[in-house]
């Protein structure tokens, strides 16, 4: 029996050698976001450019710069069939012109969808350095990566000393790995635009809906950061979330998040993917309170519901007068994705005293366009059906749609639209015989 270190040495390779066995026609899945492995992706792209690889199917979710500069580069579009399970800035344009195909999904189902529907040849992902027991950690990216790492034919890991080592069900043993490369580089950092004028009002309204002792799921972006700041006077909050972000670090450090009142995983901050700053990654490293699990667990509505007072906070693009929410489709094409929104909307509502909150700005395009619309465009998709919508919040108010008639829903929704659009929305509601 080789020692773990000997196994490591025997599997240690260069990026070029490690990817040399990939064949044309292969299906590849790579680690999500900060776990995109830059050296391996570059080595694969180099092989494609050299004419050694063709017809590669590449599956991403929220593709970021390391994959967009390599496998999703426009000059490889004739050799790479690209699939996005959530559309990001890096894939949005290609999706719009059919050079990248969106795969509709609920995030919690992605591990199963990939395992059952993709014949995965290769998985590449960044991991934290191996410990003395032979374990790497998936670090920032457990999500579906931990699943595809185990159902692919060839697993290559890129060891990055900056990848935090986290706890939970986040470990990968050297015996499970086919090849190892070492490449230490700063992890991708996520930056958001500064707060908007409306954020304060929305943050305050959302914070009023969050009781002390609640367990939180917060999306990521500028608005969730502001909402987190408004929670600084709360007590004993907990975290069970899809995305762990920098705002949560502040809540933990200030003692607002303790996790004491969680029914499930008390005192632990549970997540499946982390997207933040270098400082946040350092906070996560070797921190026993940080537990990551596959997204099939963190986003399973039944698991989400196990914590009482579960509060999920997500954003939408627009809502119609029936209460149907579109969070992913803009100007006739896929803008983002369903992600875990409906997972948490349903899970939070099913939790005892839980609430799902969908927050949005009442207008877009500098106030010229209402995000409350009479009807969704014929081509738009519904991310959260009207039966599932619980709380809607804009800078003009918060409403609870559960158990309400179509009439009352329409009136409630109009009440949180921008005042400039309320009269025309009321007329449209009448035309639709909702009033």
């Amino acid at each position, binding site marked *: 029996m080789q020692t773990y270190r000997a196994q490591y040495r025997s599997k240690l390779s260069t990026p070029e050698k490690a990817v040399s066995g990939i064949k044309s026609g292969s299906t590849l899945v790579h680690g999500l976001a900060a776990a995109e492995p830059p050296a391996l992706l570059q080595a694969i792209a180099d092989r494609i450019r050299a004419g050694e690889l063709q017809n590669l199917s590449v599956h991403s979710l929220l593709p970021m710069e390391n994959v967009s500069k390599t496998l999703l580069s426009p000059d490889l*579009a004739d050799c790479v069939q690209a699939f996005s399970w959530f559309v990001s800035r890096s894939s949005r344009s290609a999706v719009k012109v059919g050079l990248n195909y969106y795969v509709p999904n609920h995030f919690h189902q992605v591990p199963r969808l990939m395992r059952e529907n993709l014949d995965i040849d290769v998985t590449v992902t960044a991991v934290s350095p191996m410990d003395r027991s032979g374990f790497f950690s998936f670090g920032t990216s457990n999500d579906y990566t931990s699943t595809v790492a185990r159902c692919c034919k060839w697993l290559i890991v890129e060891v990055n000393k900056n990848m935090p080592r986290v706890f939970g069900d986040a470990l990968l043993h050297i015996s499970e790995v086919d090849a190892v490369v070492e490449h230490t580089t700063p992890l991708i950092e996520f930056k958001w635009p500064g707060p908007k004028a409306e954020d304060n009002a929305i943050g305050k309204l959302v914070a009023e809906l969050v009781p002390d002792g609640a367990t939180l799921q917060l999306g990521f972006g500028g608005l969730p950061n502001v909402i987190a700041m408004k929670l600084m006077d709360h007590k004993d909050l907990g975290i069970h979330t899809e995305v762990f972000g920098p705002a949560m670090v502040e809540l933990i450090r200030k003692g607002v998040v303790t996790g004491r009142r969680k029914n499930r995983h008390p005192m632990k901050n549970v997540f499946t993917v982390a997207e933040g700053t270098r400082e946040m990654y350092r906070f996560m490293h070797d921190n026993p309170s940080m537990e990551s699990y596959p997204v099939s667990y963190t986003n399973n509505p039944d698991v989400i519901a196990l914590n009482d007072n579960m509060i999920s906070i997500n954003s939408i693009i627009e809502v119609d007068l029936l209460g149907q929410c579109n969070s992913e489709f803009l100007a006739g094409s896929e803008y983002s994705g369903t992600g875990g929104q409906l997972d948490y909307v349903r899970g939070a509502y099913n939790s005892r005293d839980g609430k799902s909150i969908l927050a949005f700005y009442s207008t877009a395009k500098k106030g010229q366009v209402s995000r409350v619309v009479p009807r969704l465009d014929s081509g738009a998709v519904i991310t959260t059906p009207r039966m599932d919508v619980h709380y809607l919040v804009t800078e003009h108010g918060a409403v609870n749609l559960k158990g309400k008639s179509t009439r009352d829903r329409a009136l409630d929704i109009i009440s949180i639209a921008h005042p400039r659009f309320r009269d025309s929305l009321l007329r449209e509601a009448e035309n639709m015989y909702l009033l």
Partner: protein
Amino acid sequence: MELAEKKSGDISILGLTGRLDAYSATEVEKRLDGVIQTGCVKMVLNLEGLEYISSSGLRVFLSQLKKVRKQQGDIKLACMKSNIKEVFDIAGFTQLFNIFETEDAANISYNS
């Protein structure tokens, strides 16, 4: 999809008219392959009559571009309609191709 071909010295000028989509992409690929097989690797595609291009069409253009550039040739695009130019912009293909306002400008560029 109609494809008209003419020569200007060692340059093949192909005029595309109609829709370049999944149905016509293979035919266009074959025609361009045929031109390359004659030894001509300098091409100008006049896209004045091109009404629509799908992802299949984009992929054909890109794969043919790589073939001719391997042989020190090029495919230069001319007379794009604004909707086609927009698709090229969105796809990031304007960085990959040399694009000209007129067929003459594309032709002349081979001598510069």
